[in-house]
Every structure is written in C-alpha cells, then in structure tokens.
C-alpha cells in the first residue's frame, strides 16, 4: 500500500465535535486516504461507516489526584494570613496516549507503510493531507491567545511515523510510567521517541485545533462564584474563603445576618447555611455553588501557621 493510513484520535461527546470530526473525515477521504478512527465513547454507524477502521475502547482512562493530576497553586493573602490555594484538575493526557496505543496495536496487522495521527479537530491543510514518508512531529502554540508567536510545544495534534517506528512507540507507552512521572502527555510522548533513538523531523508549520477544550474556564480556577461578581469564592472540604468583596456585602450565615467588608473564611462543617443579599435585598443561597465537582480536587492551606 503506498498511501498513509490516517489515524484520528477522538472524544466527540457533543454534536459540535461530531460535525468537526465528520468534516475532517470527509476531507481526508476525499484525498484518497484510508482512515482509522479511535474513540473512548461509542459513535453512531453514520460516522463509523465513513471510515475504514474504527477502534472503540471503553476504558477512557482519565487519571485523577492523587494518581496524577494537573496541579496549580496560588499563594495569596487574606486578612493578613498567607494562604496557598491549590487545584488538582484531572489528567487527560493518558486518554490520548491510550488511543495511540490501541490504534498502534490494531495497526500491527495492517500493511500501511506510514501512519499519520491527527486529533479529530485539527485544522487540516493540504500539507498535512499529504503522503508523508518520514517521521514527523508537529508543534503548536503554548499559549493560544498569544498572537505574536510565542513559545511552541510539541503536539499530538499531528504526527507521522513509519510502521516500524510506530510499533516501537506504542509498545513503550506505559500508563504506570506516565502516571508516576511528572511529565505532561506531550513531553512523555517525545521522551519515549527520543529514548528509542527514533529519527524524526519537525514539521515546519505550526498546527492548531478547531475547538478549544478546557476542563475549567480560566476565570473559574480560583473562583467558584459563577453567579455574580460581588465576591469570589474558593473552598475545599473544610474551609470556604470569600474574597475580593466589591464593597460591603450583607451575608446570612446560619440564619444570622452579618455585613462583611473584607475577605473572610468560614469553617465548612460548622456553617450549613450561607447566603448573601443581592442589590434588591433578596437572600441568595450560595450552598449550591459549594457542591463538590468530582473532576476538581481543591486544597486550602494557611502558610504562616
């Protein structure tokens, strides 16, 4: 077989994502390439019948704290006390690597000479949609909002490997090794390639995706008050911090009204009812904002204790 097999990594859990996937499949097929699609979620036969091979793996192995997580922290001062707020977001890196591993395993019994991997929402170009005969790694912007260039990082959005090298790579991807290490998905992936002494070229053009995937919006990492901008809210299992109050705000804590002018914290277990009065002096319950999100683990630590 002379042409590459295009292997699409996907997690299309919305109609918007599915439309992008279908469009990209059609673009690849129109160029005459065969397509292998990988997914951790079932897809309808309307989509799978568009491709040559579909590999489904139910596991969708998202790693979470304490196994591995995306850890962010913020040192700040509330009421003259220094705090460390930290957040552990789930690590989705292994889900992508697991898809590469499963696709690689299936490709073992196929006879294509080169395998081109793309993410389902990559912005395809004629250059990407060509018959690649050498190993390639691509790069994307570290910060997408940086329109003036900015740092580039290796990306799993697009890469190409010969069948021999793909075999070396997928067999070397080991979840325990990834989970126990500190490397991000892309760094772990490139480390594997470098450790195996696999030659590759860097694809000269920047690649980008079409859809922006975020576990949590940037503005909500340190503020779970999504209902208004009167104050900011952060909490863990024990403590609730209300900070950056816009003026004096009347709260109702355990059925007692109290006006607060500055940042304050309350013990979560001792305060079962917390609300505030809005501009119309209507009491708004904030307890629904304190529901734990299983995807996000938060910790609050007082540093000058």
């Amino acid at each position: 077989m002379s042409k590459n097999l295009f292997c699409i990594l996907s997690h299309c859990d919305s109609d918007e994502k599915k439309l992008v996937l279908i469009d990209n499949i059609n673009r690849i097929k129109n160029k005459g390439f065969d397509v292998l699609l990988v997914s951790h979620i079932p897809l309808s036969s309307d989509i799978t019948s568009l491709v040559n091979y579909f590999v489904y793996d139910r596991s969708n192995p998202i790693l979470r704290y304490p196994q591995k997580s995306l850890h962010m922290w913020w040192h700040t001062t509330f009421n003259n006390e220094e705090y460390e707020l930290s957040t552990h977001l789930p690590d989705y890196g292994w889900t992508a690597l697991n898809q590469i591993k499963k696709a690689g395993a299936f490709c073992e019994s196929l006879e294509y000479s080169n395998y081109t991997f793309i993410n389902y929402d990559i912005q395809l170009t004629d250059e990407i949609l060509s018959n690649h005969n050498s190993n390639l790694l691509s790069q994307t912007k570290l910060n997408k909002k940086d329109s003036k260039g900015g740092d580039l990082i290796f990306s799993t959005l697009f890469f190409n490997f010969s069948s021999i090298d793909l075999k070396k790579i997928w067999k070397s991807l080991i979840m325990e090794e990834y989970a126990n290490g500190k490397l991000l998905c892309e760094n772990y992936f490139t480390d594997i390639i470098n450790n195996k002494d696999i030659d590759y070229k860097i694809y000269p053009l920047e690649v980008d995706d079409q859809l922006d995937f975020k576990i949590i919006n940037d503005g909500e990492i340190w503020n779970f008050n999504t209902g208004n901008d009167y104050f900011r809210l952060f909490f863990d299992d024990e403590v609730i911090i209300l900070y950056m109050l816009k003026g004096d705000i009347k709260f109702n804590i355990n059925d007692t009204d109290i006006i607060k002018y500055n940042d304050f914290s309350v013990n979560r277990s001792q305060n079962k009812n917390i609300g505030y009065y809005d501009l119309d002096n209507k009491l708004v319950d904030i307890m629904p904002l304190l529901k734990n999100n299983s995807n996000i683990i938060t910790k609050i630590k007082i540093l000058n204790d």
Partner: protein
Amino acid sequence: MINKRCFLVTAYCDNPEKVLALKTCLTQLQKYNTDIILFSHYPIEEDIYNLTSHAIYDYSNPIIELDGSRSMVNFMRRNLDGINLKFNTHSFDYGFAAAQQIKRGLLYADDIGYNEAFVINYDLIIPDEFMDEMNVMLEDHDSIILNYGEGQKGEDIIGQFNKRIYMALFALKIKPFINNLKSISLEDYYNKVGDDIVEGYLYPLFLNENSIEIARKDWEGNQDNRKIHTSMVMEGDVLPNFKKPDYSWFLGHEIQYIGDKRVDNNHQLFMLWDIKKDLNVEICIDGKVVNTSFIPKKNGYHTIQLPIEHNQLYVLKDKIKITINGWIIPEGEIKKNLKSSIEACYNE
C-alpha cells in the same frame, strides 16, 4: 500468573435479525464478567458498544468474489418422480474474511494484554455447563478445538475433509499461536485451502501438541438436544433464490454418480419444476434463439439441455438470455450460477 481472558466475538450483522442475535449473545456473555472484544466487518450500532469493552469495525471484509477461483457450496435436495436430485449452488467465499477477523481480533487481544481468548460467533448460544467444561479444559491445554469436519462425510461432497475447526466457538491461549496467526494471509489461504473450506484451513493453525479436540457428537449433541447452536443460518435453504410463484428454476451443469464415482459430463442444464401453470420458455445465446419450449402444467417438471458445454458458460455468461412467460432471468442470477450443478442419482 493469572491469565487475562477475553471473549472475541466475531460479527457481520447486516440485518435486524442478526443485530438482535448479536445483542443477545453479548448480553448473555455479560454474566461471565469477562472483557469482550467485538470485531465486526459491518458497522455496529451505537448502543451495542456499551455491551463491549473493546470493539473494532474493519471495513475491509475481504470476500473472494466469484472469479472462478473460490466459492462456497450450498445445496438443496429434491425428489422428482422418484429421481433423487441435488442442486448445488456456489456463493462468495466468506472464509478468508472470517479468518482475517479472527487473526486481527486475536492479535489485537494479545497486543492489548489478553493471554486467553474464547472466539465466539455473534449468534452462538452456549449453555453454562459447556462453558464451564471449556473453562476447566483451557487450564491444562493451549487450545480447545471443536472438531467440525467429522460426521460430515457422506452428507456433502466436500465433507471428505474431516479435520476442521468449528469457527463459531473455540478457545485458546494466544501466545502459542501468535506465529500461526501472523501467517494468515490471502496468499497463504489460496495456497493452502485447496478444495477445502476455511474451517479446514484454520484447523492446523490452532492445533498443537497441547491442544484438545472435542468430537462433533460431544459438542453438537443430537437434534433434540443441541449442546451449542447458532441462531442464524448463514447459507441454508437456497431454494427461495430460485422459487417463483408458479415454478422453480435452476441452471447448472450435470453431475452423475455411478456407484461411488462422480462423472461430470459437461452438459449445461436448465431445469424447471413445481410447475403450477403452463410455461413458455425461450433461450437465446449470443442473440440467437437456441430453444423454445412449451411446458404444460401437467408435466410438473422439465429439463432442457443447452446447446453449449458447461465450460463455455464462463465465456458466454453475458450473452445468455432465458425468458419464462415473459420474465427474463436477471444477468446477475446467471452469473451467480456459473458453477452451479445438478447431481442426478446421487448415492444415499
């Protein structure tokens, strides 16, 4: 080390009945708490994925079409006026497609960390007791083969090959057979299958000195008490393909059996039976009318020998036109029956 086991369910479900059979099979397998890999050559409906741990849809489905090189025989029997007849038809050879499913499915299972597999066809119904027996046997054996060939001799011309694997169910430790699995290819299939069928081709590939074979009578049971059975009949009664409301028709070359000896006389026959109304038949070859017949209803059946030899049919296949009471047998039907045959006086 505890072996990690999976069920590899192979499927081609292109109609609602087959899809239902697949769902039933997958649902029944849930009770064993064993991971399921579904391998299909036909797109799978979304809800079926939830019954599996892994699923693969492989578009390739390498069916060997009727190019004269390979085909599958199906047959039906009729007795007309005391004459025993056997009508043999040939269809596409799905054998290599099935072999490839097993190859790719088992290699994938091995690659993602499974050591043992039960290969199960999508429409198979397996009693718990039989599964338990196989479970115990696999502890001490590298593979469990349900012998499929034995017992077929005398029922089927090609039944002379009595060493075959029942592909709808077998179990194995995968590693000892990796090299054999990798050897499966279309070229290898053509080279080795000969006059046999895929079950015969695969039989030696899943057999080693530590295999156990189960005789057909021991796994099949009898007609009243089937031990395991399939709910779908892939290629069973072919009669409906040739049945019209007022007659049945068949195009095939003549085979006679004299004693145990098969004699191919190269005659190309066109046969009609179950005639319920008077029939006017016209046969044209290469634009020339070579036969016109009036067949009264009371005859019940009628045979016409075409003025060509059977081996000329491959050359003339596009130039044969048979009309019965104004209905023209479709060209595709003629092509499907290039290898079909009518056996007369076969030995019971």
